[in-house]
């Protein structure tokens, strides 16, 4: 699945560019969403309905994992596929620790420089570092995941359990999906979640619940055709999806525009409330699926615009999602600080957003260039092998 950066060069395998495109888009949204001082984040996907960029990221990660490791499984066996998965898990873990260190640097800096009694309670995070031997250990155990550092731990747990899922989906994809959905139900019933730190807290993204979306992505990745057979007619499903999306849009708008709140009858509100992100509420799950369905209804694997030059940076970001995600999280810390400290005006917000996205893309291009060089050397030195690009 290794694809050379220049899309005109003949790829060894046909890669579905839609994956890279939309994962890149999710990464850009996550970057914008993580800057609370940036009003541009009001235009990201989370404001259009129940689900947000997290769903896109998890679903596509499942999809890509199934394609990449499924292919290794087929060519080189289960053991090597598992080894590759575990190598990836290790990379994700190291990335999480890097981001944690960047985060504490920020906390330590604020605590030392801007201590203000008015916000003592908001700075409560500092108290956890008064016992560094505990908080650092808890961070290494992935139990301590302050602020926005909770999505990689979710990905780590999902991928670490992927050897089992992979074993299942290559044999009986729909049965595996059924088990995954049933497990989601059990988890909801018994309120299972992983423990967090400080004691008494739980994971913001409950991996036991979010596995449903990851497995759904994986099943679509490996066995999209058999899913199509059991789904109702294309147009009926499309119409249902559109109706649901419009409904979700109206509800989401009432969160931010109180004037149209009266449009929603109270019983609808009681039925919907609260939409649970931690446990992947079905409203969110189906909202994402509806969005994905409407998207693939219009956007095909061979859609021309995916090859447009303007969208190339998106695709490149999506192809190196882990590195771009880490740098994006880091840049969102930095971007936030620039807005807070220098100038938070609207043009400045736009500039910070564009610069951050440009830097993320630049990283994508550098990595693509490097990978192409390595691949070229490998083909000269050794017989062709299949690489993994996620």
């Amino acid at each position, binding site marked *: 699945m290794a694809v050379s950066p220049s899309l005109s060069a003949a790829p060894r395998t046909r890669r579905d560019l839609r994956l890279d495109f939309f994962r890149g888009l999710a990464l850009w949204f996550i970057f914008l969403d993580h800057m609370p001082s940036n009003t541009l984040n009001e235009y990201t996907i989370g404001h259009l309905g129940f689900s947000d960029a997290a769903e896109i990221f998890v679903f596509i990660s499942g999809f890509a994992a199934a394609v990449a490791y499924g292919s290794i499984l087929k060519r080189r066996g289960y053991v090597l596929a598992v080894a590759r998965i575990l190598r990836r898990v290790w990379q994700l873990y190291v990335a999480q620790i890097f981001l944690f260190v960047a985060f504490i640097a920020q906390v330590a800096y604020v605590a030392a420089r801007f*201590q*203000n009694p*008015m916000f003592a*309670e908001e700075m*409560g995070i500092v108290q956890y570092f008064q016992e560094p031997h505990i908080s650092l250990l808890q961070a290494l155990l992935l139990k301590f995941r302050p602020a926005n550092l909770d999505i990689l731990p979710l990905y780590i747990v999902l991928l670490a359990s992927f050897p089992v899922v992979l074993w299942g989906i290559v044999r009986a994809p729909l049965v595996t999906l059924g088990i995954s959905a049933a497990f989601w139900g059990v988890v909801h019933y018994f309120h299972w979640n992983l423990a967090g730190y400080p004691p008494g807290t739980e994971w913001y993204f409950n991996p036991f619940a979010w596995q449903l979306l990851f497995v759904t992505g994986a099943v679509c990745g490996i066995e999209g055709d058999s899913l199509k057979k059991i789904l109702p007619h294309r147009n009926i499903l499309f119409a249902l999806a559109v109706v649901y999306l419009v409904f979700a849009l109206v509800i989401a708008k009432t969160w931010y525009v109180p004037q149209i709140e009266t449009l929603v009858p109270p019983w609808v*509100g009681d039925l919907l409330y*609260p939409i649970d992100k931690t446990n992947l509420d079905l409203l969110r799950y189906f909202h994402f699926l509806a969005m994905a369905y409407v998207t693939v209804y219009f956007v095909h694997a061979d859609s021309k615009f995916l090859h447009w030059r303007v969208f190339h940076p998106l695709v490149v970001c999506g192809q190196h999602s882990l590195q771009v995600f880490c740098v994006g999280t880091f840049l969102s810390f930095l971007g936030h600080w620039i807005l807070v*400290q220098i100038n938070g005006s609207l043009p400045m917000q736009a500039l910070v957003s564009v610069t951050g996205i440009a830097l993320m893309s630049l990283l994508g291009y550098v990595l693509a260039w490097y990978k192409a060089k390595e691949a070229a050397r490998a083909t000269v030195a050794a017989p062709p092998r299949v690489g993994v690009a996620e």
Partner: protein
Amino acid sequence: MIARIALGALGVAMTVAVAASAQAPAPVAPPACDVPDQFRYLTDDLPFMDQAVKRTHTLKVVVVGSASTVGPGAENAYPARFEKELARRLPGVQVSVTVKAKSGFTAVDMVKTIKSEVIPAKPALVIWQTGTVDAVQGANAETFADSLVAGIEALHKASIDVILMDMQYSPFTSSMVNLELYRKLMIWVAQRRDVFLFHRYDLMHYWSENQIFDLGVTDRAEQRRVADTIHGCIGQMLAQAVLSNRDVAREPSR
């Protein structure tokens, strides 16, 4: 400016930025609490309070909250100014505002206080500031929402009106604490239970973004002055909101 921006993008701007802001004089706060109309909140349904004011000519209010209600760093926290404003706008009415707040209080703790101390005191109105500690601790979202509902129901059952108040905004802490989830839950609960929510976060966000108040000052005396002004404004605007659309209240001459 351009050079500074480019540096920022490269990742060295943090120190540059700090140096720059340290040199710039802090913006002077305007005497009045200048806010656009969107923040002039109106309440309409406070039946128990209206009844108390009309029948007994007294208004007893209890403010429940955490550190930002106790008011660390401020000479007078917002409840004090709130009381003064109420008294000024309600001539002939005996106004009393008591505070039941403690730093580190979660919504769960506050519900206990509401049931054991606030309801027996028989106020007509409760201002309930919450959400901060829950967000800092990453409390369970369901527990948080359930606590809000439990507190509101207990108060309504005891014929007490309640107004919710959300978190403070600060550009420095907003990237460290994920308030969004808890803010959304407060909006939801307020809508569903038909309770007025005082959007303190949006208000402070507006003041900070428009450089009306500088929340980044490092000088202790200056910090205190800013905190006093902000608490004063919040108290004043809270009183305005509580007494909006009410014939008992008079608009005091400035």
